[in-house]
C-alpha cells in the first residue's frame, strides 16, 4: 500500500470557451496507491468526470493548464498522443459512462476485441480468447456474447462486457466513470462488487471509482475524495468520510443522504441551500462559501489550501475547526 501509482500535483484542466476558461479542475492534489480503490464523489458539474476522462483522454475543448499527473512517476499530461496511446489500455484504462453505446453497431464483439488488442501488438489468437472467456465467466456472461452484435445485448450485459474489455490488458489504473448510475439496484451491487473483485485478484492494480452516489462508494472504496466545483473538499478513508467528516460540505452532503432508519415522519433530513457556482472565469476564494454557514471573510479572499490534518486525512477549508466541533449539522 505504499507505492504510488498515480500522483497528481496542483493539476489544472480548463475548458476553453469563447467567453473564457471554465475552470473545471482547478489545482487539485491527490494520489492513488497500488491496490487501492479511490472513490471520487461530488455533485454534477463538480469536475469528477472531467478529471477521470482528462487523465486518460485529454481532448479539446478541455485544455491542460498546469500541474502534474504522474502515472508510475511519469507526467502523462505532457505526453504526445502517440506516446499516450502506448500507455492507454495497458497502464491506464477506463470504463466509460456510456457503456450502453460503447460498441460500434456493425461489428461483432469478437472482431472489436481483436481489433483493439491488435493495436497493442497482441496477437488475438485462441489462447488470448481463452483468457477473454475466463473473464467472461467471472462476470457471469455467456461465451456466446463474443459472436453477438451490441444490439443483441441488454444494458446490464453491455455494462459487464465493457468491464471485461477495459480490463483485458490488466491495467495498473482503472477509471470507472459512473458505472453503476444507469443500472438497476440489483445489477448495481454486482457490478460494484466486481470492481473490488478484480482488484483483489490483481487483474487491475488500482481503481478510481467516480459516482455521485456516496453510499455506493462507502461500500467499495478504500478512500473517498469529495470534490466541489473543481476543487477538492476532503480526502480520507471511507469510514472517516462517512462517520467523521470535517469539511462543511462533506458534513452537509452526508447528512442529506437517506438513512436506513430515518423516516420523514420521525426525523427530517436537510439538504444544502443554493446551487454550485458557475465556473466560467471564476476567481479566488472558497467555492463553497455561498452555501456554507461557517464562511468568513478569508473564504472570499483566498482559496483554501489542501492540508493534511491527520495521517491520510486531507481537506481544504479555512474554518474546519469551527465546523468540526459543531455537532448539529
Amino acid at each position, binding site marked *: 500500500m505504499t507505492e504510488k501509482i498515480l500522483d497528481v500535483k496542483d493539476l489544472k484542466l480548463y475548458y476553453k470557451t469563447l467567453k473564457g476558461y471554465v475552470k473545471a479542475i482547478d489545482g487539485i492534489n491527490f494520489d492513488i496507491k497500488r491496490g487501492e480503490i479511490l472513490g471520487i464523489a461530488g455533485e454534477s458539474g463538480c469536475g469528477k468526470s472531467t478529471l477521470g476522462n482528462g487523465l486518460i483522454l485529454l481532448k479539446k475543448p478541455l485544455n491542460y493548464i498546469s500541474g502534474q499527473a504522474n502515472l508510475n512517476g511519469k507526467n502523462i499530461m505532457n505526453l504526445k498522443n502517440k506516446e499516450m496511446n502506448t500507455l492507454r489500455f495497458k497502464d491506464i484504462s477506463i470504463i466509460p459512462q456510456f457503456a450502453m453505446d460503447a460498441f460500434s453497431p456493425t461489428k461483432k464483439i469478437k472482431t472489436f476485441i481483436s481489433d483493439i488488442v491488435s493495436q497493442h501488438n497482441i496477437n488475438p489468437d485462441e489462447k488470448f480468447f481463452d483468457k477473454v472467456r475466463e473473464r467472461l465467466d467471472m462476470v457471469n456472461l455467456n461465451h456466446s456474447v463474443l459472436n453477438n452484435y451490441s444490439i443483441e445485448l441488454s444494458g446490464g450485459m453491455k455494462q459487464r462486457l465493457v468491464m471485461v474489455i477495459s480490463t483485458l490488458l490488466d491495467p495498473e489504473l482503472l477509471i470507472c466513470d459512473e458505472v453503476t448510475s444507469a443500472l438497476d*439496484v440489483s445489477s448495481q451491487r454486482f457490478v460494484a462488487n466486481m470492481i473490488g473483485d478484480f482488484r483483489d485478484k490483481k487483474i487491475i492494480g488500482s481503481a478510481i471509482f467516480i459516482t455521485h*452516489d456516496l453510499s455506493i462508494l*462507502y461500500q467499495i472504496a478504500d478512500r473517498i475524495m469529495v470534490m466541489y466545483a473543481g476543487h477538492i473538499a476532503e480526502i480520507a478513508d471511507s469510514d472517516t468520510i462517512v462517520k467523521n467528516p470535517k469539511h462543511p460540505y462533506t458534513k452537509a*452532503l452526508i447528512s442529506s443522504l437517506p438513512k436506513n432508519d430515518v423516516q420523514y415522519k420521525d426525523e427530517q433530513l436537510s439538504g444544502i441551500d443554493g446551487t454550485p457556482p458557475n465556473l466560467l472565469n471564476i476567481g479566488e476564494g472558497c467555492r463553497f462559501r455561498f452555501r456554507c454557514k461557517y464562511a468568513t471573510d478569508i473564504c472570499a479572499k483566498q482559496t483554501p489550501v489542501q492540508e493534511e490534518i491527520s495521517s491520510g486525512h486531507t481537506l481544504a477549508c479555512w474554518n474546519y475547526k469551527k465546523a468540526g466541533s459543531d455537532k448539529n449539522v
Partner: protein
Amino acid sequence: MSETIMKIDHLQKDFSIGLMSKKKVHAVNDVSFDIKKGEIISLIGESGSGKTTIGKLILRLLRPSDGHIYYNDKDITTDYKNKRDYYKKVQGIFQDPFASFNPLFKIDRIFDMIFKNFIESDKNKKEKINDALKCVGMNPEFILRKYPHQLSGGQLQRLLIARALIMDVDVLVADELISMLDASTRIDVLNLLASICKEKGMAVLFVTHDLSLGYYISDTTLIMHRGNLVEKGKTSLIYNNPVHPYTQMLLKSIPDIGKRWDKNEKFLPEDINKKIDDFYKNSDIKKGFIEVEDDHKVLFSL
C-alpha cells in the same frame, strides 16, 4: 387520512411487441391499490417493471387494457369526457424538469396559463401565485421574471410542485421526481413535498427506483416486478419484514451508508429470477395476493 380518493382496481395494460407480431407483454398485470387523502405512496420497481405505466394510466396518458380506475367513486376509464375537470385535480410531475417547461415562456406566463386553463376565476390570482411560491421556498419577485433555462433543476421541480399547489390537486403522480437532482438538493424537494401532503391533504404517488428515498418519504410502499405488484403495505413493515424474494433482494442491494455489503455473498442478478420462480412454485398453501400481517400483502403465486 382514511378517506380513499382513488381506487385502482385490477388494472391491466398489455403492449404488443414487434412490428406485426401478436406477442403480448403485460406491462401492468392485475394491479389493485387505493390512494388515500394526504397519503404518500411509493411505487418502487426497476426498469421495465411497469411502474411508469401505472403513473401514465392514472394520468390518462394511456388507456388500460382491462380494469378500472375510480376517482371519487367515478370510473375514469369509461368516462372519456371531462378530462379537463380531472386534470384540475390529478396532475403529474416528471423526471426531467427542463422538458416540462416551454423554454420560450417566462415563469409568470406559465403560471398565467394555469389560471387560464384550469381555474375559472382570476380572483386573488397574484396572491395565490405568491403564496404557492413562498410555500415552496422561492422568492416570487425574483422567480417570475426568469426563463426556465436561468433556473436550476431543483428550482424547476419546486415550481412544478408550486403549480400543483395553486391548482390544489388531490393526487400528484411524481415519476422519478428527484432522480435528476443532486443529493444535496433532492432531500429538500422531498421534505417540501411531504410537508405539503400533510398540510393540504394532497396524495402523492411517488414512482421511483430508489428504495432508500422511498423509505424516507412514504407511508405505504408498493413493490413492482415485471408488471406484477409483488408486495404492498405499510412502509416500515415491508422494509423490516420483506417476504417476497424480490423485495428481499432489492433491500439487500441498497447501498447503505454505515453498513457494508457482505462481500462473500455472490450477488448475481440472474439468480433472482430463478429464486422468484421457486418461490411461486413452492408456495403450495398460499395462493395469489395474500395478507401476511395487518396492512402487508404479498404475491405468493401468479
